[in-house]
């Protein structure tokens, strides 16, 4: 009996937020007051809140509804991973804005345990996220070549993924502005 198994896949969590209206409202207050700047080292790719990733918008702006919602999704994800959930901190969070022609280069989130993105403002053709294989051997393989996985998401959706998983965002080809909230989570390490 023939069987083909896929071993060691990389888990990607995707969900609509339950408290959509309240969360959108919470974010709307933040978005209107945030100064957006381009990172001069990245070229003309996209706009970031305060121009960098060093702030923690979720904490600074007390986005409590989102934080509470996020907790339940992180717990669900951890259950699925058979990882016993433990305390964590959102160590940084930022907003990214994509006007027509903007994109995001391929990057990872360093030592973050779980990273995520919430789509506050999103429509068709304004730039899908794509992930790059974390297995470099497959990138140079003739028959196991599987370099990118593209995902079409909707406004109000939340993605969670390993911080090490490289990803990028395709060009926004619409006249609409695309706005997303990204964050990095670190679980508490126990130090004896």
């Amino acid at each position: 009996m023939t069987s083909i198994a896929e071993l060691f896949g990389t888990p990607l969590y995707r969900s609509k937020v339950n408290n959509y209206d309240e969360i959108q409202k919470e974010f709307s207050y933040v978005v209107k007051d945030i100064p957006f700047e381009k990172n001069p080292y990245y070229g003309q790719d996209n706009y970031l809140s305060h121009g960098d990733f060093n702030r923690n918008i979720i904490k600074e702006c007390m986005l409590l509804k989102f934080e509470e919602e996020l907790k339940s999704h992180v717990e669900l994800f951890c259950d699925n991973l058979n990882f016993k959930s433990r305390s964590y901190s959102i160590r940084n969070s930022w907003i990214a804005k994509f006007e027509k022609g903007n994109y995001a280069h391929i990057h990872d989130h360093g030592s973050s345990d779980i990273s995520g993105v919430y789509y506050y403002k999103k429509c068709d053709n304004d730039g899908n996220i794509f992930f790059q294989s974390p297995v470099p051997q497959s990138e140079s393989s003739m028959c196991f070549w599987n370099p990118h996985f593209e995902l079409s998401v909707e406004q109000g959706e939340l993605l969670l993924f390993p911080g090490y998983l490289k990803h990028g965002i395709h060009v926004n080809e619409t006249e609409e502005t695309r706005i997303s909230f990204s964050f990095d989570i670190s679980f508490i390490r126990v130090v004896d």
Partner: protein
Amino acid sequence: MSNIENIFGTPLYYNVLDEEVQKDFDEPLENVTWEMNPQWGQTHYLSDPTFKEHLFEMYPLDNFRKEIDKNLKLFCKSLNFNWRPYTIRSSWMAMFKKGNWGHCHHHGTSDISGVYYLKKSRDDGDIYFESPCIQAQTSLCFFGGNMVVPAKQGGLILFPGWFKHGINMNNSDKDRISVSFDITFNR
């Protein structure tokens, strides 16, 4: 409604081959001189510890060749890889006596590698694969360990040549004999 999708998994093919394949190895098993690779310690026995001998060049192995061809085509179809001519560029037998095991290794530049279980019973050591994602190996919450793949006598496993694997210890009193090979598609 939440959804979790596993992306970028590494494909592994398994099938049980026609019993006639076993007969192909009557002659090779009669003629083989088992030796350990002196540089590996007391791990297991090989038909040629230098890997220079090629079973397919020494013996007809017609049934085995046909079965490899048939299963390789099925595997390639599942990978959406357009079929092309290939070469079985190396092949050898490995024997694991009680207490023997196989260290974790890969098959270098081989496109697809495979193992056929000529003699296999319970507790004589299953093959395991190591996560090909280094980052997962050092992750707190994402699994990056080893996965054991139990197989039975007559079974064939096909996998990427770069996929690291090893063999758990033979804890039985029976010898375990497998045939390994490396495939390269024509460039």
